[in-house]
Structures are given as structure tokens and as C-alpha cells.
């Protein structure tokens, strides 16, 4: 029987040859990811359910990357880090990346890839909805809650429904003014925030395979904004080069059978697409930047797992080099690695850091920061009636802080161009 890539990964994890869509099956988990917000309650449930002397099923398969509330004076946030550290010590977890030390990495989804945990064909569960980011590596990744994560900690297994798949094909080479963010916002506008609920979103086509891993991660990251269980892209030489430069662990490559069944297929020609935003207050509230150009903004925010990777900052630098921003603009590298790259990666002979500083941007320390609002002292947090253009992934009311604020989700090109003009601006005007 023909299967999709997602079905084949499920079958491997269930020690079966074939799994049918709609079946509820038990999966063996390759990696469990958690962070400072959901780690402590997960560990509490684990201890309560499995007993005070219980040990996690496989310490090397638990990856703990604090990233949400790191640079804050909030005492409860500090306590959460203390609880992570204590559990990691008790359980002798080798893959704990402690905040405040040189082990600290930053935003978990990006650091997970940088550290070589994203292996094709494997199954990843994480206590964060954007765990689907890892699908860029031809693997299954999805978000779960604390109870499910605690169950995995004790047993190494979890039940999941085999999803139907939707296929999104992007034809043609990518134009220089388009980014992965524009592609996924285009899809969201078409299918809505529940258009893929409980399904796999498979991305394919020449434009997708022309993208670097950073951009493929952005596509898969926002599968959850359509309600998708996972986003997934087949492995090619770009994927293998990324993975092989970070780990020598073995992996298995799966691909969808040509005659696999899909719930639905969408075909786009990227030459016909334009830069788009998601207007307040929903990621599916799509509009072309041209149609809303001139809308005044009060802040620009370039960061997060969707918009704070090296490729995102290379895009922003194309706009910001030699220009100055006219609204407060915050640059938040996703990880310590990306932050270091800003100091050495060049665009037209100038480091990205210098370009951003000369443009008048402020560069924050790597973490999730204001993507999800966070404690009151979080850098870049929206206040009052702020109108923010942001490279983040979610813009429901209050997401970046203030319930009264409006957030326009956009590509790094659009966020940078709008920062320069102080109003929503199509990046083609400045490229």
C-alpha cells in the first residue's frame, strides 16, 4: 500500500510496515524536547505518576533547552530555571543547556537543529507547539502538553493518530523579494487557522528545494498556525549537508510514494505571488503588503524561531544596509550561535551587526523574548495601542503583550522595509 512520508515515519516508530490514516497507534519516541515554561510542570507530573525514585526512560533522548523567560527579573521565571537544573542533575540528563552558563543556546527549535538532534526519519515530541519546525529535516515533529510529555518521560511512548496529509507544491524558482514567510502566510490565507487540523502539511516543489534549511524551518514552523499536526519536507542534499556537519548519528530517509493518497493538493507558482502580511488578529488574515502599504507602525520586531535565524538577518540586512529605521526596531537572534554569526557574517563587506547598529536597531540577547509577550520587563514587548510589524508566527490578541496592540506578521524583508519607512512597505520598493 502506498504511504506518505509521515505515514512511513509513523510505521517505523511503531515497528510496522504500514499504518493507515486515522489509526491511533503507539509511537516509540526518539527525542523529547522541553523548555523552561513547560519543563517544570512536566517533571512534577512525571514524579507524581512514576514515583520519587523513578528514572526517565532514556536520559540521552531528553533535550532541555530553556529559552522563554531568560533575561527577566521575574522571580518565578528564575525559579523555573532552578527546577530544570535540579531535575537535570537528579536524572543525569546529558542534554541540558543551562541558562546563565556557556551551555545556554537560545530558542529551542533552532538550537535543536544546530546541535544535531534533528535526524531524518525520526520522531520528536516537544512541549511547545512549534516543535513542528523540525519537519524541515524529513522527520516527524509535533507539540504536546505536559501530561503527554510526562508519559513519554516514563515510558518512551505516546499514542498519536496517523494524520492524513495535505500537499503544498511551490513551482518555479524563488524571486528575490519572496521568503518562506510569504509562502506560509499565503497558505494560511487560503486554508485558515484550522485548515489543516490533525493533518500533516507536506511542502514540495522547486521553490521549496531552493530554500536553505533556515527557510524550510520557517515553512514547517507555521504548520501549527493552520492547526497542522506536523509540517514536513523531504530530505535532499541541502538537508544532508546541514545534518552531517552537526552529527554523525545514523538516520533513515523516507519519501512519499508517488501514488500515496492526499487529503488535498495545492499548487502555487511563486512568480505569481507577492509579499504578504497577516493582519491583526489572526495568522490567516492575509493581505498583500501593497494593499495595506502606508499603514503607520510603532515598532518593528525581527526575531523568534520563525524570524530570528541567520538567513532572516541576511534578508533584513539587504534592506537595512546604508539606511536608518524610523521606528524602534528590535533584532532578536534566535540562538547564541546566530548572535555570534551577526558579528562575523557579512553583507556587501559589512558585518550584519554593524549594519543593524548603523541603521539604529537595538540588538537583544537570544531568547523567545517578546514573540509571546512574556514578563513585563521583556525586551520588545508591545504596550498599549502599539502597531507592530513582526517576523514572529502568531498574532492573536495580546500575543506580544498588550491586548490593545495590533501585530502584522511579515517576512524579514517586509519588517525591515517597514521599519525604514515607519509604515507598512513592500520590500520591492527598497530592494
Amino acid at each position, binding site marked *: 500500500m502506498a504511504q506518505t512520508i509521515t505515514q512511513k515515519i509513523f510505521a517505523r516508530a511503531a515497528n510496522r510496515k504500514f499504518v493507515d490514516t486515522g489509526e491511533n497507534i*503507539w509511537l516509540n519516541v526518539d527525542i523529547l524536547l522541553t523548555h523552561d515554561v513547560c519543563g517544570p510542570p512536566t517533571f512534577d507530573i512525571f514524579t507524581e505518576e512514576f514515583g520519587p525514585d523513578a528514572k526517565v526512560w532514556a536520559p540521552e533522548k531528553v533535550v532541555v533547552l530553556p529559552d522563554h523567560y531568560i533575561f527577566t527579573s521575574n522571580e518565578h521565571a528564575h525559579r523555573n530555571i532552578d527546577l530544570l537544573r535540579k531535575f537535570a542533575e537528579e536524572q543525569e540528563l546529558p542534554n541540558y543547556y543551562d541558562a546563565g552558563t556557556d551551555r545556554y543556546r537560545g530558542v529551542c527549535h533552532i538550537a535543536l537543529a544546530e546541535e544535531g538532534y534533528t535526524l531524518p526519519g525520526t520522531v520528536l515530541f516537544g512541549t511547545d507547539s512549534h516543535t513542528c519546525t523540525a519537519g524541515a529535516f524529513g522527520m516527524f515533529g509535533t507539540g504536546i*502538553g*505536559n501530561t503527554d510529555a510526562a508519559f513519554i518521560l516514563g515510558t518512551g511512548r505516546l499514542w498519536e493518530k496517523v494524520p492524513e496529509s495535505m500537499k503544498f507544491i511551490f513551482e518555479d524558482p524563488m524571486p528575490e523579494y519572496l521568503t518562506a514567510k510569504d509562502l506560509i502566510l499565503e497558505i494560511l490565507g487560503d486554508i485558515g487557522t484550522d485548515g489543516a487540523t490533525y493533518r500533516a502539511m507536506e511542502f514540495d516543489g522547486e521553490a521549496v528545494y531552493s530554500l536553505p534549511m533556515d527557510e524550510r524551518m520557517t515553512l514547517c514552523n507555521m504548520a501549527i498556525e493552520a492547526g497542522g499536526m506536523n509540517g514536513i519536507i523531504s530530505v535532499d542534499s541541502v538537508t544532508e549537508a546541514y545534518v552531517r556537519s552537526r552529527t554523525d548519528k545514523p538516520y533513515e530517509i523516507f519519501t512519499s510514494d508517488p501514488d500515496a493518497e492526499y487529503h488535498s493538493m495545492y499548487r502555487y507558482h511563486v512568480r505569481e505571488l507577492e509579499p504578504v502580511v497577516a493582519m491583526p488578529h489572526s495568522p490567516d488574515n492575509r493581505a498583500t503588503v501593497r494593499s495595506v502599504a502606508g499603514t503607520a507602525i510603532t515598532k518593528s520586531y525581527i526575531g523568534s524561531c520563525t524570524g530570528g535565524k541567520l538567513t532572516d538577518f541576511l534578508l533584513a540586512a539587504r534592506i537595512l544596509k546604508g539606511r536608518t529605521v524610523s521606528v524602534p526596531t528590535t533584532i532578536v537572534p534566535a540562538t547564541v550561535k546566530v548572535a555570534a554569526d551577526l558579528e562575523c557574517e557579512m553583507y556587501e563587506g559589512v558585518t550584519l551587526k554593524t549594519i543593524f547598529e548603523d541603521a539604529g536597531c537595538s540588538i537583544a540577547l537570544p531568547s523567545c523574548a517578546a514573540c509571546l509577550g512574556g514578563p513585563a520587563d521583556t525586551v520588545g514587548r508591545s504596550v498599549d495601542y502599539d502597531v507592530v510589524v513582526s517576523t514572529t508566527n502568531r498574532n492573536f490578541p495580546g500575543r506580544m503583550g498588550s491586548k490593545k496592540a495590533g501585530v502584522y506578521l511579515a517576512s524579514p524583508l517586509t519588517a525591515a522595509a517597514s521599519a525604514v519607512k515607519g509604515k507598512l512597505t513592500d520590500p520591492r520598493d527598497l530592494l
Partner: protein
Amino acid sequence: MENIIQGKAYVLGRNIDTDQIIPAEHLVYSLSDPEEVRLYGKYALSGVPIEQAGLPEGGIPFVEEGNFTSAYTIIIAGPNFGCGSSREHAPFALKVAGARAIIAESYARIFYRNCVDGGFVIPYESSQQLSKMILTGDELLIDMDASTVTNLTQNTTHPLKPLGDVVNIVQAGGIFEYARKNNLMA
């Protein structure tokens, strides 16, 4: 497990995401310390813009200022309830506030799983647009055996979709209780 849930309705619209159910700034409180846990009740649904809180009229907070629990026990909502982040703090907060069941047109996957596997609140689905038919404050009665909800204020009864595969986990009270009963934790 008792098979009747009775209480007042609290009506919301579509796409109620987890930041509206419990805003991210509150995720720092302990979920096990009894005193701090009460704060999750206090801030449950505090992220919903006030004009959309307690429909059709709006302007009705789920939890009154200064309180830690809600006067409402059954939440009625449109499609895609619980979309957004994976935070289990969301169904937890609803439970702490006193909610026992939700009836929505549909749910986001992670929120739905969290409700069921954590045994917090029962996520019923309705194929009718109940958020347009039920008013905040109406007295409702859910009959779990019959899969119906009766509006005692309006004297109407609506069918609910059966819980399907997950009914066993709901009846057990969560994934751990279910797994123990079925020897799945060995």
C-alpha cells in the same frame, strides 16, 4: 464517573487561542503549589478582549475581579477552540476556575489532547453553532450518556458529537489512569 454536568454557560467566539485562555505572562506560576495554583483560576480567559468576553453582549469577565473561580461551568465556543501554543496551563486554568466541560464546534489538536489526557475538562463538539444559540448565563445540563446538552433556560435540547475513541480516557480521568487500567505503563 457521574454522567450529568449542570451549570451556567459562558459563551465565546471562534479561534480562542491559548494566549487568550491564559496569557503567557502568567505561565510562571507553579502548577503544584496550592496557593499559586489559584492564580491560574484568577487569570483564566483573562486574555479575551472584553468586548468578546461572555457573548452575545460581551463585557462579562469569566472570573470577576478579585475572585479565583468562575460562576460559569460550561464554556460554549465556535470553531478552533484552544489553537496556538501547547501550554497545558490552558485547560488547567479552566479547570482551576471551575469549568467542567467545553462545547465547541471544533478544537485545535494539542489543546484537545491536553483536555483528555490530563483529565481537566471534557471537550465536547457540536455540529450546531451553539455559540449563536446559547446566551452567557443560560443554565445548561449535559447528559453524557445521551450525548446531549439541554438549555434549561430556553427549554431546548441539542445533540453533541459522541466522544469516540477518547471516551475511555475521559472516563478513566486521564492518560495515566487509562494506561494503568490497561497495563500500558510497564
